[in-house]
């Protein structure tokens, strides 16, 4: 072998060995110092760490984390996520992290409770692409070819003086690569986005009851169950009805009675009855009933009251009186 060829061979082997040693040392450093190289597979941390960047992260306890740190955690689905801390809440020895990608408008939906997290110290743009290529089937095949070539160079006829350590390092590196024990991790810096739509919901405007229909129960000859009955359709559970019975001519007179009727469904009928008037209530006198619709929610009146004219008539053989619809 000529001197030039020997130098080239030695150079190749030394470079290969050095790279392998670096690879092993980085693996060892990762184990010893809790360092994790991270390949960013997506770009929500752009421009600080664009897709394809290689970030170097070191595991630190939760107490050392603060807002603004870029940390790598594992989500509920077991995937590694690297985003920036937007908020942090202490939880004993642990911390609950709210993360957000730098290009995302909203924080991650899932908070992360961690006792320690990989905090990214710095990044190398595009380096992740190279590592990703090396981890691909094509990259592994190329590495195997390279290793084979280097081994042939090392152990080919007449080359037994090549340091065995270099060859061992190359083989170990190749073995790790084939076994999938890559000294780096892929991390998602996933994007988020949110869209919203709003609609104003309202309930119907308030309504008031219809003019009551008045029905007299009047028999001839008079019995002891005469009455005037006012009815109108119910308005549903939102509405109650306040009524007043006045003696005299509308709108004046004297208030005799008042009360409130509970809500009645829209398919039901509200009934207000006036029957026997105690002695002294007045015979053959004009009366009228006013009815207001009210909201159940605050008992406020809805619209104007209705007025129904009534009159009283004598009760047979007694001092009391009955109520009838209309005027006497």
């Amino acid at each position: 072998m000529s001197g030039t060829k020997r130098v080239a061979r030695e150079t190749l082997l030394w470079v290969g060995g050095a790279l392998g040693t670096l690879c092993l040392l980085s693996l060892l450093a990762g184990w010893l110092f809790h360092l994790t190289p991270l390949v960013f597979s997506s770009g929500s941390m752009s421009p600080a760490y664009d897709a394809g960047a290689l970030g170097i992260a070191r595991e630190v306890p939760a107490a050392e984390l603060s807002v603004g740190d870029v940390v790598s955690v594992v989500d509920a689905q077991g995937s590694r996520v690297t985003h920036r801390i937007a908020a942090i809440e202490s939880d004993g020895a642990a911390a609950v992290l709210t993360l957000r990608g730098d290009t995302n408008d909203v924080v991650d939906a899932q908070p992360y409770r961690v006792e320690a997290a990989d905090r990214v110290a710095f990044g190398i743009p595009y380096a992740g692409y190279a590592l990703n290529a090396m981890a691909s089937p094509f990259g592994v095949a190329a590495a195997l070819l390279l290793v084979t070539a280097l081994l042939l160079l090392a152990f080919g006829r007449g080359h037994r003086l090549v340091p065995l350590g270099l060859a061992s390092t190359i083989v170990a590196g190749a073995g790790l690569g084939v076994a999938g024990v890559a000294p780096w991790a892929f991390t998602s810096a996933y994007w988020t986005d949110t869209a919203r739509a709003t609609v104003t919901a309202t309930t119907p405007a308030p309504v008031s009851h219809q003019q009551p229909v008045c029905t007299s129960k009047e028999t001839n000859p008079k019995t002891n169950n005469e009455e005037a009955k006012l009815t109108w359709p119910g308005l549903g559970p939102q509405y109650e009805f306040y009524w007043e019975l006045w003696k005299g001519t509308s709108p004046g007179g004297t208030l005799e009675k008042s009360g409130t009727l509970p809500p009645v469904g829209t398919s039901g009928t509200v009934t207000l009855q006036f029957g026997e008037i105690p002695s002294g209530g007045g015979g053959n006198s004009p009366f009228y009933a006013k009815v207001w619709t009210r909201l159940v929610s605050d008992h406020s009146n809805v619209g104007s009251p209705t007025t129904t004219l009534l009159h009283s008539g004598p009760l047979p053989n007694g001092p009391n009186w009955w109520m009838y619809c209309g005027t006497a």
Partner: protein
Amino acid sequence: MTLHSGALHIDLESNVRVRPETIGNWADLNLSGLADGTSRAAIMTVGNNSLGDAPLSYRVQAGAPGALGAALRITVRRGGSVSSGTCTGGALIGGAGAALNGFDAPMDLHLAPGQSHHLCIQVSLPAGSAIAPSASSTVTLTFPAKQEPS
């Protein structure tokens, strides 16, 4: 592993890459004068207009304040159709007649770039709710999206 560059965009109706995106008063769904025991429904289109190879997952969330908001119910059907103020057919998302305020359901399918879902959204006020007349509540429908691996 595929390394992605681009941007994620979930859009509503015919919007394309609007950010931030809020449709102020979604006209398709008319919830004015909603009486007890009635419902209204409309179709919302949710699209993935992301740049790059970015499939997305998303959720359907809803909220409405006040007594009216607490009484409202929601039904979401992916691929459903509107029939007399109700949603029929399609895939039910998150349960039928669920409480609208606090509704939060994941969509059952991811959206690939360029794809869209047609969501039938039904809002109802159950009979006997006894909400005061002229009550008002702003219903907010939120669609948070997250990039998924392709």
